[in-house]
Each structure stands twice: as C-alpha cells, then as structure tokens.
C-alpha cells in the first residue's frame, strides 16, 4: 500500500490512488483513501492531475491499444474470434426475438381492437333493449359496458390494483367504483385508493363539440388516433403541472380557474394516467388519480378504513368496513355519522346516473346510492336521508 519512498510513507501508493480514481476499490479501502485525501493536499493534487490527464487521453489510448494489437500479432488472443462469432449469434437471436415480439404485439393489438369494437356494439345493443328497464339496471349496464372496454393504456399493469377491476363484471358483492360518465368516484378498498374520472369531452366546454366530432372521426380513421392521444397526453402533463387536484377534479379539468381556487382543499390527487376509451357514441377519456402521500382523507369516526366513497354536490359519502355510513361536506372538517335507514350491511356507495349517462343534477333528485350486502339499493339526495329504491 505504501510507496517505496520512506518520506512519502504517509501517503497511499500510486496503485491505490489510481484504483480510487478508477472506482476499483472496495468500500472499506475507499473510505480510508477518502479520509486521507481530505487531509492531504499532496495526494489530492496527484489525483486531480491524473484524472485530468485521463480525460484527454482515453481516445488516444484506445487507438494505441488497437494499433499495438495489430503489430503484435504473434500474441493475439484467440478469444476475440470466438467472441465475435458469439456476438454475431447473440445479435441474430436478439433480432429474431424482436421480430417475433413485434408480430405478437401486432396480433394482440388487432385482437384488442376487435374486442373493443365488439364490446361497444354489445353495450349499445343492450342499451337499446333495456331502454325501459329500471334506472339502476341501466346504470350498472353502462358501467359494465365502460369497464368492458379496455383503455389503451390500461394494459399497463402494476400501477394500481384498482386498474384490474376494469375487465371484471360488476357485482354488488365486489362493488367496484362505478364508472360514471362525467363524474368521478373512488374506491378506498385498499390503501392506494384510486380515483377515476371519465369524461365525454377532451377539453373545456367550448371545445367539447369539436372534440366529440374528432373522436367520432377516430372510429373511422384510425390514423388520427395518434393525434388525439397526443392531445390527451398534453392535457395530462398540464394537469400534472397543477399537481393539486380536489375531489371535484371534474371541474378542475374543465375550468382550471376553479382548480386553482381549490388548491387548499383537503383532498389532493395526483394524476397517474389518462387514457382514451373508444365507444360507439364517440371517444371518452378516463383520468385516474391517486391521493397524494400524506394527504389522505381524515380518518373516519369508526376508525375503520373506508371501503367505498362517492362525491357530488360538495358532499362526500363513504362506507367503512363495518357498513356504517358517513357524510361530510367539502368545507367541513369532520365526518358526520348517518343513522342506519337500510337493511343489511352497506357495502358500497356510488353516484346515480341518468339514462343519458350524466350524473343526476336536479336539486330534488337522488344523487347517491348505497348497495347493501344483498344487492338492494337505497338512494339519497343529501347523503343523510335514504329511501329504498
């Protein structure tokens, strides 16, 4: 370790300093060299000079090594031939794998597109058949139809478990968050509660008609899909810049001014994905949000985790793991317990949807629905007073 000069025996030798500069030392010995360099100006100077000289010489050295390899052919290693041949085989294999993967991806894409179109056609047909059916059935059918149409980016698994709900049939037992056009709902069934927003336009209200037209054109001209997708991604980036979304992010997206005013609202969300859903009536976009870390909603009075939550009209209604219901106003700081007015155990709360697929908006009409463990439904306009449906 030490140099041969006794006067320099306090310094690491050239080999150690060079190994340090080339990051070839173990953690322990590197620590010793660093400790020495911190206190030794001479060795710091040596390392600086050697390092700076190295920066100017690397290409030149490579040329010299190559040239030396040519002139000393009697000592050429045999390995390069072997490696060259093996490298060629590896490259050929990689190319074959890439071509196969591209073909499989293409076939899969065609299959997905076919399934999407088929599911959309079936949903439209069922909508027509069930026109006179009860409102709940329509809502469930619509949600199922939307879930059955996979979003282009929904294939990216691993972002959220809630994403996997999309292709599952909707049952009262499972009670996934309803996908409601133009509204947002979230599931709190796990810690990474996912909020999802589904919209029928691509931008603010004044551009809505044109966007729908563009999406309608999408169904016929597949090549324009890329441009619309780019538009959505642009909007996703814009939303990410805001970085603070409230539960009423529906309005944040359409009216950014509202969003900015609601920056300090209690719930904040981060957009994680925005995807395009193609349907017979035009394009729909789906934006998914996750609550920002450290900004989880206030704990429920029961101390149990919320399993289902819905928000509308400035109200948030949630069901905890024991089936108890709580309501809170946006401006409020705490949850209000709701007296039980239903049978069984409430397992889910969701927003009611009109036949047109929009959230119920009349002041007298019901907005919220709860589903008990037997599949029965109760409705409420204010989240406090419930009646059987």
């Amino acid at each position: 370790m030490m140099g041969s000069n006794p006067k320099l025996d306090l310094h690491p030798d050239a080999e150690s300093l060079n190994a340090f500069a080339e990051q070839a030392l173990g953690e322990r010995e590197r620590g010793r060299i660093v400790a020495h360099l911190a206190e030794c100006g001479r060795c710091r100077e040596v390392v600086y000079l050697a390092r700076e000289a190295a920066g100017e010489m690397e290409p030149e050295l490579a040329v010299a090594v190559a040239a030396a390899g040519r002139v000393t052919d009697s000592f050429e290693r045999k390995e390069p031939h072997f490696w060259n041949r093996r490298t060629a085989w590896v490259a050929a294999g990689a190319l074959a794998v890439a071509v196969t993967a591209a073909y499989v991806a293409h076939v899969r894409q065609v299959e997905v597109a076919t399934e999407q179109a088929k599911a959309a056609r079936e949903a439209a047909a069922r909508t027509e058949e069930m026109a006179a059916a009860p409102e709940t059935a329509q809502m469930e059918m619509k949600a199922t139809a939307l879930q059955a149409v996979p979003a282009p980016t929904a294939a990216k698994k691993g972002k959220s478990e809630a994403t996997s709900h999309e292709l599952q049939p909707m049952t009262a037992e499972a009670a996934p968050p309803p996908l409601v056009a133009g509204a947002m709902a979230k599931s709190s069934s796990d810690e990474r509660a996912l909020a999802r927003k589904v919209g029928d336009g691509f931008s603010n209200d004044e551009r809505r008609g044109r966007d729908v037209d563009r999406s309608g054109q999408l169904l016929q001209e597949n090549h324009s899909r890329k441009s619309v997708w780019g538009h959505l991604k642009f909007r996703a980036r814009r939303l990410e810049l805001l970085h603070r979304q409230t539960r009423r992010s529906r309005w944040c997206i359409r009216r950014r001014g509202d969003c900015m005013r609601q920056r300090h609202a209690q719930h904040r969300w981060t957009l994680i994905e925005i995807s395009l859903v193609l349907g017979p009536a035009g394009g729909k976009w789906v934006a998914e949000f996750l609550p920002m870390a450290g900004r989880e909603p206030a704990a429920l009075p029961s101390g149990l985790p919320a399993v289902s939550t819905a928000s509308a009209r400035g109200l948030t209604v949630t069901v905890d793991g024991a089936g108890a219901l709580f309501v809170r106003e946006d401006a409020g700081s705490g949850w209000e317990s709701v007296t039980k007015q239903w049978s069984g155990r409430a397992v889910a709360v969701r927003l009611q949807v009109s036949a047109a697929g929009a959230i119920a908006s009349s002041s007298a009409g019901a907005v919220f629905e709860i589903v008990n463990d037997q599949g029965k439904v109760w409705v409420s306009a204010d989240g406090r007073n419930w009646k059987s449906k």
Partner: protein
Amino acid sequence: VGITPAQPVEGDASERVSAARSAIDGVLVDALWLECEAAGWGLERGEFSRILQEVGTAHNFGLEDGEAASRLQQAAYFRGLRLGDLVLARACAAGDERAWERFMAIYREPLARAAIAITGNETLGRELADQLYGELYGLTTRDGERRCPLESYRGRGSLMGWLRTTLAQRHVDHYRRRRREEPLEEFDTPAAEAEVGQTNAELTVLEKAVEEALRSCEAEERLVLAAYYLDGRTLLQIARVLDVHEATVSRKLKRVCEEIRKQVVKNLESAGMSRRAAEEALGADPRDLDVNLKKLLQSSQSDAFKERAG
C-alpha cells in the same frame, strides 16, 4: 518449475503458516494463467502463481484483515483485477523484450501526452516521461538490486491509470521539493492576531468550535470542503474525482456548509455565548471559516495511514 498444475501455491517456509490460509487454488491459477496468456510474456506458471499470491495477500483478497478468503472469494477478487495489464507489467519488470515492445507500442505516446498534460509544458512533460521510463527500465538500483516501479503495480485499476498517477506523483513531489528549496524572496507579513472587536479568548473559543464541527464531518465531506475551498477546484473537477455528478457535489457542499455553521453556533452557545454573539462571531458567510479550515485540515495526516506508516 517443479509445481504440478493442481498443486496449491505456497510461499517461503517462514510464511508457510499464513500462506496456507490463503493458498490459491491450483485450478484457478491454471485457468487465469491460460486466460492471460502469461506464457506468451515469458511468465511460467510458478512465477505467475507467485505474483497472484503476492497480489492477493497484499490486500487480503479485498477482505477484512485476518479474514480467510474462500476459493470463490479469491476467484472473484482476481476476476476483478486487470490481469492482462498485471502480466504485462510484471513481464516488463522481469525484462522480457517482447513485453517491452508491447508496452512501448501501447503506452509510449500516451505516457508522453499524459506527462505534458500534467506539467502543462511539452519540454517538462517529455522530461518527466523520460525520467519515468528510466525508472521503469530499472536503471535505478537499491541495495545492489535492480528496482522497477512496475513491480508495485497490482492490477487494481488500469496500467495506464497507474502510469498517469505515478507521473503525477513524481511531478507533485518534484514541484513541492523545488518550492521548499527556493529562497523566500520576500518576508511574509504575519496575519493580524485578532480582528477588531474580537478578543483572543473569543477567537480561541471560535477556533475550538470550528475544530469540533469539522471533526464531526464525514471524511468525504471534509474532502469536498478541502478540494473546493483550499485547493480552489471546480465542482466539475471534484465530481470527476468522486465519480458523481457536478450537481451532487454542489448540493453536498451547500449542505455541509450549513451543517458546519449550525454546529459551530451550537458549539459556541454551549461554550457560554449567546446565540446573537455566536452568530456575530461566526459571521454571515460560512466561507469566512476558510483560514481555520486550512489550518485544521492540513495540520495532520489521517489516522488510517499513520497506522500503516508506523
């Protein structure tokens, strides 16, 4: 050479006990010997295994002192070395003509360029490179024995890097020796004993507080401080040495300065000063500590190398 390929390599009789603990597997030696084509440079298997033994035991195969290396650990250590460079260096040290031809073909011009880059002067650079060549050829002797610096190369890092570092060492040592021998042209006026408004007692307390604060810094933090404030190196230069990004060095520097400042204020307060007095004593800019930093950092060598030197 009287050693069968599968036979473990051992050292002298006096070292037999310790060497037995770290004896290198003969199969591994054979494999490395063939891979390096050491025979092409005139290195017989016995000599090659002796070199491996020396290189491995010099750093205990990268393990803690006293820890016995398993065969796998030995193999991993040797696989991490530049064995090709090591064989060439040792063959040159042994005086093999073909090895020298190879060495000259690869390193002659890069070495001269490195010397010029280090000295900043072509004449001085060529002179420095020639001087090193003289040493490498073994023109110097010690105790009647020909000495070649290439024998100290152990394969950790590239041979070119070792040559550059050796050149830099020679240059720095030469420069420092020459500076010490030069007469002082003018008498340096001593620095003022104390600033206006500050008593010696306050300065002593401040110095002690700074010393304690610096002592609490980690080695890498002290290295960054010394490189930036004492050596006047740029963030980029420091980043290259530490193999991190320039911005990382910048952040580290800022954080260390803030921590030192806080620690000094805390130390001053614990020494009886009020917070306001401590802030005033410290000054607004942490770089005001430059003089004390130099004094503290350059005053001693690291404990680790003191131990090795003893």
